[in-house]
């Protein structure tokens, strides 16, 4: 199911943990969907000096979190904001399609941590967007609620509705 790189990061995740007095904290996901990622960043001279994470989730979620920390450390904030879902998938040498949505949220959590840092710099509290507690994406075709669209392959690709 998973590539070797994914399994390596899952088995030996890099940069697990919290950063005490972090400069920014970002969290995405919710337990109902099965994945929660919390990122902690330390910033110095506009550069990510350290990034750590804690993740509740499947193998992919843990591997994604781990590789995102590796990709981010040493980058400028601007560069780090440009780390995309696609780049993460490529760095992991691919992810199963059904893991593209819920589990590939590591860069989002990182971005939120950076936004949190930037908001704090400006003296404002960063408002974390709400991750709806019940809406997870359909693994196959972006139908919002697979419960209501059990055959999302059908519903999307086939019946086109």
């Amino acid at each position, binding site marked *: 199911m998973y590539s070797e790189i994914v399994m390596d990061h899952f088995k030996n995740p890099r940069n697990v943990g919290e950063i005490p007095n972090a400069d920014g904290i970002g969290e995405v996901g919710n*337990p109902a969907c099965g994945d929660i990622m919390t990122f902690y960043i330390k910033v110095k001279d506009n550069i990510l000096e350290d990034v750590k994470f804690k993740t509740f989730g499947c*193998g992919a979620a843990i591997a994604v979190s781990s590789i995102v920390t590796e990709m981010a450390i040493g980058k400028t904030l601007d560069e780090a904001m440009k780390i995309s879902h696609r780049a993460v998938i490529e760095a992991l040498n691919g992810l199963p399609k*059904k893991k593209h949505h819920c589990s590939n949220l590591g860069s989002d959590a990182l971005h939120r941590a950076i936004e949190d840092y930037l908001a704090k710099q400006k003296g404002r509290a960063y408002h974390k967007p709400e991750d709806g507690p019940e809406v997870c994406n359909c693994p196959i075709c972006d139908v919002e609620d697979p419960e209501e669209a059990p055959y999302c392959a059908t519903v999307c690709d086939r019946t086109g509705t």
Partner: protein
Amino acid sequence: MRIINLDHVAAVPVLPEVVKEMLPYFTEKYGNPSSIHSLGEEVEEAIGEARERVAALINADPSEIVFTSCGTESNNFALKGTVQANRARGNHIITSSIEHFSIMHAIKTLERQGVEVTRLPVDCYGMVDPDDVEKAITERTVLISVMHGNNEIGTVQPITEIGRIAREHHIPFHTDAVATAGVIPVDVKAMNVDLLSLAANQFYGPKGVGALFVRKGVRIEPLLDGGIQENGLRAGTENVMAIVGMGKAAEIAARDMQSRIDHMLPLRDRLMKEVPAAIEDVAVVGHPTERLPNNVSVLVRYVEGESMLLFLDMEGIKIASGSACISRSLKVSHVMLAMGIDAGAAQGSLLMTLGKDNSDQDVDDVVRVLPPIVQRLRDMSPLYKRSGKVKASC
């Protein structure tokens, strides 16, 4: 590495005795039972014998057994076939909220076509209350379908009692016995059921074959239209080899059932006791006693099922989980939600299903290997030691 299969609900190997009985049907006895020449006759007899063996397993008459391609087909056939055949009489079906997908989604399809559905609640053990069945019955009710044993939480429903109510009201009663037939005693007469689904691969038979028991006199239309195979109720060239295998597996299951149960029960009870004892914040799911002898279902707080399964797999231990990440629909088990377990807690589901070859050594290994895996993942989890305890079960 020693492989420990604790995922028998997903798959069991076919018994060597069953394989032996099936092998001649590849190249020697390859006839089609529809043929009138002798190539056809020998296989027709073999199918007749398999029908008798499957009937004997559930105390039915052989003429009441319709072979299908899997449990899912049996369930779809039972539901869609009776609704279709009873359209003039009514338009309402009663079911539970903890059915297998093949019941749940077939009923959704019927609902989209205008059928009215009552989904009965379950208590925190996953148990349906027969009184609720009685209350839900209307003039227009044409079918009641409540599963026998639940594959995810192990709870066994009060089928005999529900069947008695259905019979009093002259309403056909179907039960999905895919997780129970061949595992625990199933008697269609004593249980008052009119339709019952079963699948061979749950009791050491091959994949690709199931059956529906249809009591004589019950109105049903075929799901697969075509030739007059299976007495006009299921068209398509008979899967002779698989049917023969199902027959043999049924015969052996009937013979060995009690000794298999006697073997599995102590292992199940050890797992249900020792896993929660070895790891804090673990809850047992499902009914403590009205329960499949092969089913252990627990919730491990603060961690997600797939990540536990991957680490267990590396140690050769094969188990399942009802977590969202694992399900192909990426949804948490509707069964657990129906029991009042919250979606977050359900992510930590571990489902162990025993087979006749599991041993005390297997239990020892799980109890030894699982705690450090859980601790490692909890140390990584942002939820650990943060959120309060969540109601996991009763």
